[in-house]
């Protein structure tokens, strides 16, 4: 168990180092001189050289990489051109919205996806199953921002039940009630991911229900519902756990769009704004943080999977 965790940690570290090279290279691959981006086109050659020297950009590329890594390890992700602040604090300012949005979304995804998938699997082949599966496939084919725009149109503009955009911090006026700002965005973001988990729960429950131990349980006369909850569902849940990493990545991609639709002050919208404002160091910093998070999540999923399913160890 521990040796596996250690091995996985090593592999994750290697992937992270390789990814960091790509993220570092990103800023050097953008056409145009980063100094001119920072100073504007009116800068004199002397000014440019001076800034180039202060930033260490006249050093060999390998030295620059290690300087960057060293700074990152000390919590220095660089400086935002637009916000004129350290990037880490810019990210921290946008983190609350994104973390809350992701958490609420995951609650929706699990609350909707798992039970509905379970129902579809137990009624396998029925009209209900076909209807639910069809609906899930439809939800997976809908652009997230389109759902979001309709949510705004119906629940904010027409019915006036919920706010259409923005999110004041929980620490501001309104307190916990400010969570209502995240209701429509989280439901929007949950739709395609709940559909994915629904399909996955259904498929893995059907797989497990064909196994021998389930037949044995039925033959022993255990009540059908207990077979479903104790023998099929528990094993099927493993597949859902293993899909968590994949869902996390999908969530990040879709959050970029959803936060833009609902004008939420989150990390996803920060990326889009930074692209439009040519604030490239911020993009670099955010991508690094997201990749680290993603690799950590995947590592935890892999290790916990081993923990939950002792059979994996035998293979």
């Amino acid at each position, binding site marked *: 168990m521990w040796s596996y965790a250690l091995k996985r940690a090593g592999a994750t570290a290697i992937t992270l180092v390789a990814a960091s090279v790509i993220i570092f290279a990103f800023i050097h691959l953008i*056409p145009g001189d980063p100094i001119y981006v920072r100073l504007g086109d009116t800068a004199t050659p002397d000014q440019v050289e001076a800034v180039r020297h202060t930033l260490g950009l006249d050093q060999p590329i390998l030295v620059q990489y290690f300087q960057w890594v060293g700074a990152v390890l000390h919590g220095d992700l660089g400086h935002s051109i637009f916000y004129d602040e350290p990037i880490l604090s810019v990210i921290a300012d946008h983190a609350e919205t994104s973390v809350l949005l992701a958490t609420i979304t995951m609650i929706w995804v699990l609350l909707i996806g798992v039970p509905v998938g379970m129902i579809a699997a137990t009624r396998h082949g029925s009209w209900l199953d076909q209807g639910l599966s069809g609906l899930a*496939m439809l939800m997976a084919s809908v652009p997230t921002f389109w759902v979001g725009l309709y949510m705004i149109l119906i629940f904010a*503009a027409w019915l006036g039940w919920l706010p259409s955009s923005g999110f004041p911090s929980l620490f501001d006026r309104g307190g916990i009630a400010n969570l209502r700002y995240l209701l429509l965005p989280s439901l929007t973001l949950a739709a395609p991911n709940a559909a994915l988990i629904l399909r996955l729960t259904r498929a893995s429950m059907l797989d497990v229900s064909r196994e021998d131990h389930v037949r044995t349980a039925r033959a022993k006369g255990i009540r059908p519902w207990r077979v479903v909850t104790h023998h099929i569902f528990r094993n099927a849940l493993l597949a859902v756990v293993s899909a968590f990493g994949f869902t996390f990545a999908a969530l*990040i991609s879709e959050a970029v*769009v959803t936060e833009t639709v609902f004008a939420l002050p989150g990390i996803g919208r920060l990326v889009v704004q930074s692209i439009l404002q040519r604030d490239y160091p911020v993009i670099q910093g955010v991508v690094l943080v997201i990749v680290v998070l993603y690799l950590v999540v995947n590592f935890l999923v892999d290790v916990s999977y081993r923990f939950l399913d002792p059979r994996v160890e035998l293979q």
Partner: protein
Amino acid sequence: MTDVANHSDRRPGLIRLWIGPLLARPVALLGVAILLVVVLFAVAAPLIAPYDPSAYDALIRLSPPNPQHWFGTDQFGRDTLSRVIYSARMALLVGVGVVVFALVTGVPVGVFSALFPRLGQLLMRAIDVLMAFPSLLLALGLIVILGPSVANSIIAIGAGFLTTTARIVYGLALRLKMETYVEAARSMGSRTGWLVLKHVLPNLISPLLVQASFVFAFAQLGAASLDFLGVGAPPNIPSWGNMLAEARNFITRAPWLLFFPGMMIVLTAFALNLVGDALRDRLDPRLRSAFGAER
């Protein structure tokens, strides 16, 4: 199972193998029908569209659906129906482009990695590294480097599917390598190139057809997202994503502008998913597992 005595029987053709399962399943047939309509829109747009998609008419700005303009008009008085029809061209272009990009890059990487394990391990690690970037972030990063354009959208979205395609092909090719007939051919002295052409690639066609339909579907959603964020196709080119990006500003005044382009994206992606599902179910069970349960 085939009769062993019937050696002379030709293998069932691709058409019989693949059109059959589609015809047998009504929902898949529906998917095919929707796709045919989209193709028809793209090919015959000038014949079908009632108006010039970029003709301005200030007098009829933002008019709701009416007998002259079935889908209404936008903020410049352009006919929405005509723009929806012309946008099918962009949808097909991006879909085909992304599929071709993913196959042309992913298949060689996968096959090569399976055949030459040492270098393959390294290549697959590189694919793992690319997979650490969420697809839209990868696409946005590439757009920043390459600049926004239709061709670059295709590359940016395609890069995300290079990885999945390479992974699937790698898994399949590894399995094919172990098949007795491939080993037999190798032990008889077949060259690697011949092995790939004769035994590996033909067996990859069916699973890649399945993969292609899913990639095509997800490419529609990816392209729409890039267009919506303003970093995809230039705004003067009609595309469903661009239409939605503009419609967003008139969401309460002209909700119909939101409905029709969005519906086209949903129908196209849904149709491709239906077809992909039907094709996957037809697939050899040994190869099917490569796609995972959720795709």
